[in-house]
């Protein structure tokens, strides 16, 4: 085990996969010489050279289009979109082209590519550089969607995404980049589509993703310490494929489920889990499933306002405690 930051785990995963597979290539804005604006790709240019690690113009459609064309003809490209908000300027490629081409052509091509992006708030960048847009990707048939919460998951799930034969949208939560954690040494690959139970509990089940996972863990610890409430915490990790087996097993154990979502309220991933749980776990539920989300507003930039908007440890703690009353 080595301690790595969430940020360093990105480069570690890419390097691991580029060493073992010559068809893995990487492109994006400022990713090569600058090592990425979030310093997530430092060292890759030095090790793999300009042929495999390529700086691009500020042309998101060209970046994603190039990744798609290369993927459908034999490479395994990794494309970086600097901020996930910029998906909006290349959404045609992401929503219309990449996910539908295999299906529309009746299986004539595979689309093994990864789009990595810095997602989410907490760093005071305002409404156009802070969005949590996993649900945009989740609603498109044909995209796999991954959002890790720890450095180990960054490495293991990014490696798995690169090896996957389908397009994967890989959301790195930018407020987690400095977080440190133990990462297994040597070649490390996780499996896509597996949620992780981080904390076992008997009274409530808190289901969280990405930056909301450490907050849910802190809230669970406080519930235990201050109120004697035993909460389990499930890290969803992958929205597509969705590990409903693990999630529903945890919901059934306690009968009281809460989602913690960074996205604005409407159509967040928790709404889908809530809907599925209604259909499939209804008779095991003691309470309606409660969603804890960012309100349905654009995210403001000031410290005080952004902190109030995002689900906080305090809000998670209060909502669960009041929900169980």
């Amino acid at each position, binding site marked *: 085990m080595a301690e790595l930051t969430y940020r360093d785990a990105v480069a570690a995963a890419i390097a691991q996969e580029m060493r073992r597979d010559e068809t893995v*290539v990487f492109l994006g804005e400022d990713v090569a010489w600058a090592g990425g604006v979030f310093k997530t790709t430092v060292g890759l240019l030095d090790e793999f050279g300009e*042929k*495999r690690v*390529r700086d*691009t*113009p500020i*042309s*998101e*459609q*060209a*970046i*994603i*289009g*190039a*990744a*798609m*064309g*290369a*993927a*459908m*003809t*034999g*490479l395994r*490209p990794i494309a970086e979109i600097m901020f996930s908000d910029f998906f909006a300027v290349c959404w*045609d*490629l992401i929503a*219309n*082209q990449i996910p539908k*081409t*295999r*299906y*529309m*052509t*009746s*299986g*004539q*091509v*595979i*689309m*093994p590519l990864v789009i990595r992006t810095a997602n989410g708030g907490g760093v005071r960048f305002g409404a156009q550089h802070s969005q949590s847009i996993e649900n945009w990707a989740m609603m498109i*048939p*044909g995209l796999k969607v991954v959002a890790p919460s720890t450095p180990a998951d960054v490495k293991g799930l990014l490696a798995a995404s690169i090896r*996957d*034969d*389908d397009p994967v949208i890989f959301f790195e939560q930018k407020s987690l980049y400095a977080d440190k954690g133990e990462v297994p040494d040597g070649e490390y690959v996780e499996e896509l*589509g597996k949620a992780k139970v981080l904390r076992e509990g008997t009274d409530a089940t808190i289901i969280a993703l990405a930056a909301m996972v450490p907050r849910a863990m802190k809230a669970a610890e406080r519930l235990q310490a201050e109120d004697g409430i035993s909460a389990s915490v499930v890290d969803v990790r992958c929205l*597509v*494929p*969705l*590990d*409903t*087996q693990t999630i529903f097993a945890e919901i059934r154990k306690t009968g009281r489920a809460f989602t913690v979502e960074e996205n604005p309220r409407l159509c967040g991933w928790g709404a889908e889990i809530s809907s*599925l749980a209604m259909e499939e776990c209804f008779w095991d539920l003691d309470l309606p499933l409660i969603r804890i989300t960012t309100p349905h507003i654009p995210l403001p930039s000031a410290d005080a306002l952004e902190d109030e908007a995002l689900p906080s440890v305090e809000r998670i703690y209060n909502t669960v405690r009041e929900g169980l009353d």
Partner: protein
Amino acid sequence: MARKPKAPAKSKAAAKAPANSGSRLNDDIGEDKRLKMFQLQLEVRHLETRAHDLFLQNLVKGTSHLAVGQEAIASGFATAMRSDDYTFCTYRGHAHTMVRGASMTAVLGELMGRECGLLNGKGGSMHLTSVEHGAMGSYAIIGAHLPIAAGAAWKSQYLGTGQVSVCFFGDGTTNIGAFHEAINMAAVWKLPVVFVCENNLYMEYTPIGDVTAVEHPAADRASAYGLPSIIVDGNDADAVYRVARDAIEMAREGGGPSLIEAKTYRHFGHSRADPAKYRPEGELEEWMKKDPIPMYRQRLLDFGIGENVVSSIEEMVMKAVDDATEAAKASPEPGSEYLFKDVWADGGASWRN
């Protein structure tokens, strides 16, 4: 208000082409390729016309965009391409897919929503693709496929395969962002890709000149990306072939991308829903005089090819279209097993465990 007809453009490439001397075809193109281009143009013409007839019989559903009048571009390029080169085209893509080798039955079958269709009925008219023939897709959103074609060219460059991507699009595409993003990046990366604007004078229902700041929507933009301005008579398969050959050869040798503007005209409207009433009176008639197929037929005769050779190609193509029509009509509709197939690489559609 009636618009004044635009005269067919004079082609720089055509002006440079060898004079039609009436001698045998011992020039840079030769008899075999000319006969191939004639046959391909006829195949496109008759298949597209058949598709139109099948609409009227309500056997082709949805929409469809015909390339009648534009056959010389697809045929000239296909004849200049290596079998492993890549074609990327638009929703007006029946021609580009077929000239690479996709069967008429599979094309018509797809338009008719039959199991024998190129995509088993899952894509339809606007998405014809035949990867085994290098036809890497018809793209239905304007501009999307220019960066995708550049990406395939990146693969060729990276692996050193020598394959060239050829990317066809309409004049309307020159005003969308992806056009500029793709050509700039292809030029900077010196990618082996040939961008081909089929300028048929109309972006959907509006004259391209009414909405574009320059006279030649593609060629006049080339200098912005350090590329030469190339205009070719898109109704002359020989002229198209020569321009295609040179651009593809340059790309294959590492000389980077080209941007070619082929002037042409579609005889039908934009899509099946469009009777093209916005065209000024006399314009279609003027362009019919430049119909690529009778012009090319006459050229073959002038080169000394026998009428019997030419007419036997015509008969063969008509029979092939008839046979394909019957085969497609006889094919069943796709079964529901296709519905949940091939979302993912594992062949399935599951999004949960």
